[in-house]
């Protein structure tokens, strides 16, 4: 397999900074706003998402390219992916519970939330499409990297958000803005700052 290093770096930069899942692509917003109140839970959720995203992007890629495409049933993509992801999360949960109770305690409560998290489904669907940089379908390695990096990008945004929200607990937010609205304003300002990464390219 020949690995296009430049493409991998570009995918990584794009997934973490330029097209950050949360701040630019609008994926995974429900957990982003739901689990960012405390830094500790944000880290836990982030880790769980990175893990599941990585595994999910590998498995869905394999299924898509070795099952759906050859048999020309790629229109079943949505059904198959969601089933794979749902059972994957179940499997991960059960395995963790059995073999690593510590990790299960840390990530366990976040896992069920992940099933209906569009970030996971999103990365699977994106990986089934075309690479923005080469206009070719994603290779296995590329989709793997895309999965990990998208998870890291999600976690980065989540952790930054949690830090800020913990600080906002101490601020005097005007009453109509308290709760979700100020969280959206915060996310908006974060997204503005992340615009600074737009057009970032280490290989021009």
């Amino acid at each position, binding site marked *: 397999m020949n690995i296009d290093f430049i493409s991998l770096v570009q995918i990584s930069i794009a997934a973490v900074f330029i097209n950050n899942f949360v701040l630019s692509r*609008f994926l995974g917003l*429900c957990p982003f706003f739901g689990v960012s109140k405390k830094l500790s839970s944000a880290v836990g959720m982030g880790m769980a998402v990175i893990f599941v995203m990585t595994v999910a992007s590998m498995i869905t890629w394999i299924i898509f390219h070795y099952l759906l495409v050859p048999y020309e049933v790629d*229109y079943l993509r949505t059904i198959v992916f969601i089933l794979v992801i749902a059972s994957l999360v179940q499997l991960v949960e059960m395995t963790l519970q059995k073999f690593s109770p510590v990790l299960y305690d840390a990530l366990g409560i976040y896992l069920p939330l992940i099933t209906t998290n569009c970030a996971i489904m999103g990365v699977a669907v994106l990986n089934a499409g075309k690479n923005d940089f080469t206009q070719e379908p994603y290779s296995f390695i590329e989709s793997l990297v895309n999965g990990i990096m998208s998870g890291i990008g999600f976690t980065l945004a989540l952790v930054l958000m949690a830090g800020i929200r913990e600080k906002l607990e101490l601020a005097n937010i005007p009453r109509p803005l308290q709760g979700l609205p100020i969280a*959206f304003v915060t996310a908006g300002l974060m997204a503005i700052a992340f615009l600074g990464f737009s057009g970032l390219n280490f290989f021009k």
Partner: protein
Amino acid sequence: MIKEELKRGIIAENPILVLALGLCPALAVSTSLQNGLGMGCAATFVLICSNIIISLIKKWIPEKVRIPCYIVIIATFVTIVELTLKAYFPELNNQLGIFVPLIVVNCVILGRAEAFASKNNLGRSIIDGFVMGLGFTLALCILAIIREVLGSNKLWGLKVFPGFRPMTIFILAPGGFFTIAFVMAMINYFRQKKEGGQS
């Protein structure tokens, strides 16, 4: 009764603006009214259809495989929507992008299947699907109208104000967040005012 149901779906339990569910499609496709309405209709279609099927077959589905079954049913209708859009509304399909397949994970739909359709009869489930879908669609349209007008000075792709210079940020990601924050804050403000007046 219908009136109360409508009020519930659109105002009291608005999926996006009150329950904060299904935020991703709400923000991602509300850059123009066309997209917002398209997404709203697609989601409503899936919502109603899956509610119908689930309330019909709820008796035969064993408790333990309930969720996977719902997911499969929802995914089926999503695929139908996907194929239909591709065939007859290619433009819209391009605009909505990956958010069409993502309807499948939309928290609103699975949430309604689980919380409502699996416990209620056909008629009520249809109504529930309809009002919730309406609430979803209306919220999307509100966001979309604000963003399209402010962000590109257009509505349904047509210019609105002569001499107004649109603020592009509103059709970019940050503007999505600001718009929903603003709408939610307004809702809070009026609700708090009402509560304040009552007490």
